[in-house]
């Protein structure tokens, strides 16, 4: 069978992408980037839960009874998942949690972009983090990294515990 040159190039590209996708150094780099980002993101929220609750309220999507609970629990989910990614403790599960959060953030931001809603109380406790469209783009990049970490099949570098195997 004769393989056309165009098809061969696509196959080569696929192989290169697969090689990159399963590169252990890229996996650990993404894990650290996501870990540091999420620990950093949780820091301010843990220090100022009241301000974070105001931000959650500002999305105008959650029932009143859930706002405080989200503001209390979410930063610790980010912190624990971020720490686990960096330390390599259950990295696949931590990445899945992070991906779930990122997907939720993206959906929430897109809903508010579509309905043209932007919360601005003019108060210091709920200052804007950036334009919603930029935040969606940023979260999509993080989600790509999270997917690489989750789907990675090779031997993970710098891991304490992953899927029961100690390295």
């Amino acid at each position, binding site marked *: 069978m004769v393989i056309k040159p165009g098809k061969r190039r696509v196959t080569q590209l696929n192989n290169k992408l697969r090689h990159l996708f399963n590169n252990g150094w890229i996996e650990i780099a993404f894990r650290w980037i996501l870990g540091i980002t999420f620990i950093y993101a949780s820091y301010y929220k*843990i*220090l*100022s*839960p*009241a301000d974070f*609750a*105001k931000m959650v*309220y*500002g999305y105008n999507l959650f029932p*009143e*009874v859930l*706002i*405080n*609970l989200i*503001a*209390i*629990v979410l*930063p*610790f*989910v980010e*912190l*624990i*998942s971020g720490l*686990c990614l960096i330390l390599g403790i*259950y990295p*696949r*599960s*931590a990445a*899945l*949690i992070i991906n779930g959060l990122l997907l939720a953030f993206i959906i929430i931001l897109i809903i508010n972009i579509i309905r043209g809603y932007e*919360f601005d*109380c*003019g*108060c*210091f*406790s*709920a200052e804007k983090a950036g334009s919603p469209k930029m935040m969606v783009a940023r979260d999509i990049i993080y989600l790509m990294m999270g997917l690489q970490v989750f789907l990675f099949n090779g031997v993970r570098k710098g891991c304490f515990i992953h*899927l*029961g195997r100690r390295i």
Partner: protein
Amino acid sequence: MEWNKIIKEMMFLLGIATISAFTVNFFSPKGIALVGQWDESPGVVASKADSDVFNGELEIKDVKTAKQIYDKGTAVFVDARSLENFKNGHIKNAKPLPLNQFDNFIKAFKKKYPANTFIVTYCSERTCDDSHKLEQLLFDHGYINVSIFIDGYQAWKAEGYPIE
């Protein structure tokens, strides 16, 4: 993929996060209530943090009462919003005391206004609690006659009352 194991690990991590979250929130001086006050009709929305100093008795809950006080000319209206927002528009004759620059402004303010001055603080609207925080800061600096106009600049402007 070992889904059973992944789900167990996720439950474990989420469990640790939840327990840590409620423990820290319980012991932290900045902890918040499990359910906040997020309905705007009774007053300013808030998470009801342990550190909250909201005093309902000090609140001016409608814009017309605020206007009556303003018309008497006995109160100094103080704007808690950012200096940028203040410059873009504020209640006529109001003084700026931006919450994030309070320390820079309070010295000059104290020189001009004695502790018995009747002060009305305000910020943007009921979703904003900066006017409450400013009231507490002014109280800490000896001002005992402070009220909070909770509907803030937006409601004042919407009524067509004097701004500059």
